[in-house]
């Protein structure tokens, strides 16, 4: 029998606020343990949480960018569970009235992955298990999170990876999170089940917790899919359970026993009043949502003449997209700017985070000046490329590297002399051309280009050479 994968995601994203969700401690990452704490975020009795306005705004923006409906009335609830990462023994979250509902993220194949909801909640502290004890750092405790819950619409590892990447791009574009999976500011729980192809019924699902890399998400899903299919094929039954993925052995294993069945006894947090958002406020936030990556990608193809792949590679990163748009403003063919970015500039940005941060020495305006020079015919492509390399090395403008004589182009006499020289220096190529080998002409022109260090006009040189040998 053939089986298909059915998967849904719960994605936690840390919001880029300055302070925590219910207190004024900083959310900065990487400090000494327990130095970003106060009585509220370590859960001392008698403290009163107060909701961070910015966290609510960011969550609404996340909803708007993923086509959600925004609730005018929303509230906070307590999710009760007893574990040392949670000093109050409950997490303040949202249960039946989340801020955002009924959205979707569209994949490149046109398929919509529906979002059930997006709600806000507080992050838990960090536990380090060593020497048989648990060390607790509450710096992360109380950092604002959104949890994005999808419907089980994902059918393959490829769709899963694209879904996570799309979420990451969108949230970075709207500036509500850096979504750094390796630092834990974006983490996914994957719900996965299998069923015979053609069946409409959902199988029993397992949940793989806390995945913090797109590669591992793919591997864990493949492993878990295989495990469930094998289990069913051999007459067994999938048990609903929470799993941990081990990236060393590439296997999943059970995290908790069944006797700890989830019973969170949600109830409204009486310390926190209703959240009320007016349509006007929602519209104000809507106006802040920039053009999103897939919208840019479409425009780059339809209006700027880029191919799909280049458009995608540029639109994916907000800073690169902005650089491209500035560099190609008023340029005849924006593709020239795209080529320099994907050629010369991408070579210097090896990792995804290099591209995300986009620290390069050249400004978009400087690149545009260089392209204008190229378009005016005053310099050739090779010279433009080597000049751009020097600009990227130094951060200086093209005028530092291109001399007046380079810019003057080449007068006709000099070109004629060079062409004569080329014909004399390449008797074999001349003979070949006369014997009908068209290609031989190119090598004579190449000689001229080399001698002139790229300054000669290739078309003019070719015409001149033909005149001489034709």
């Amino acid at each position, binding site marked *: 029998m053939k089986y298909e994968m059915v998967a849904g995601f719960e994605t936690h994203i840390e919001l880029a*606020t*300055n*302070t925590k969700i*219910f207190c*004024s*401690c*900083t959310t900065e990452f990487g400090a*000494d*343990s*327990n*130095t*970003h*704490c*106060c*009585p509220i975020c*370590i859960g*001392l009795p008698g403290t009163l949480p*107060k*909701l*961070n*306005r*910015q*966290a*609510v705004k960011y969550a609404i923006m996340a909803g708007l960018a993923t086509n959600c409906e925004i609730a005018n*009335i929303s*509230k906070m609830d307590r999710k*009760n*569970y*007893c574990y*040392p990462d949670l000093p109050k*023994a409950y997490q303040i979250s949202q249960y039946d*009235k989340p801020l955002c509902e009924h959205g979707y993220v569209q994949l490149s194949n046109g398929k919509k992955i529906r979002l059930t909801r997006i709600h806000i909640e507080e992050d838990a502290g960090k536990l*380090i*298990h060593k020497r*048989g*004890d*648990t*060390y*607790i*750092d*509450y710096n992360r405790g109380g950092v604002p999170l959104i949890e994005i819950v999808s419907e089980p619409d994902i059918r393959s590892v490829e769709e899963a990876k694209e879904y996570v990447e799309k979420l990451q791009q969108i949230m970075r574009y709207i500036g509500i999170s850096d979504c750094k999976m390796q630092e834990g500011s974006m983490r996914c729980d994957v719900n996965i089940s299998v069923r015979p192809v053609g069946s409409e019924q959902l199988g029993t699902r397992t949940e793989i917790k806390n995945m913090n890399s797109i590669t591992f998400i793919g591997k864990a899903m493949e492993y878990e899919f295989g495990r469930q299919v094998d289990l069913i094929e051999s007459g067994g039954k999938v048990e609903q359970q929470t799993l941990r993925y081990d990236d060393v052995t590439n296997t999943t294993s059970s995290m908790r026993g069944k006797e700890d069945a989830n*019973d969170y*006894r949600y109830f*409204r947090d009486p310390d*926190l*009043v*209703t*959240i*009320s958002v007016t349509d006007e406020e929602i519209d104000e936030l809507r106006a802040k949502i920039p053009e999103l990556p897939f919208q840019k990608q479409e425009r780059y193809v339809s209006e700027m003449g880029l191919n799909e792949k280049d458009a995608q590679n540029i639109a994916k990163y907000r800073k690169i997209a902005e650089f491209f748009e500035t560099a190609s403003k008023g340029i005849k063919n924006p593709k020239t700017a795209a080529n320099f970015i994907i050629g010369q500039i991408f070579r210097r940005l090896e990792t995804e985070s290099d591209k995300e941060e986009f620290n390069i020495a050249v400004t978009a305006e400087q690149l545009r000046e260089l392209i204008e020079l190229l378009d005016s015919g005053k310099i050739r492509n090779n010279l433009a490329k080597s000049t751009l390399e020097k600009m990227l090395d130094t951060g200086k403008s093209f005028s530092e590297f291109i001399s007046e004589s380079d810019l003057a182009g080449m007068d006709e006499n000099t070109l004629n002399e060079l062409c004569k020289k080329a014909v004399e220096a390449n008797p074999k190529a001349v003979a070949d051309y006369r014997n009908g080998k068209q290609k031989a002409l190119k090598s004579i022109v190449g000689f001229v280009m080399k001698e002139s260090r790229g300054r000669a006009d290739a078309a003019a040189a070719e015409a001149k050479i033909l005149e001489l040998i034709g």
Partner: protein
Amino acid sequence: MVTHEDVLAIARLSKLYISDEELDEMTKAMDDIIKFADTINNAAEEGVEFDNINNLSNAFREDEIVPSYDREEILKNANDIDEGHFLVRKRV
């Protein structure tokens, strides 16, 4: 009606131990509490929205950092500390 099983389940989730002697008393107490809370349902008029009974909303805080407490202060009440961390015995 709250049962012994309900009370034991809630106790387990809350990591509390309830002895057999306490069980009857606790079950009755829990039942009384729930019944008391239930009186609000009897008082409810049609159309009353209990979600926001006090009509308060949007008690927000601005996103401005206030210095956190010294770590010594934060760790002062802990039973056990080590290397700037709260320390708890590892749970099985």
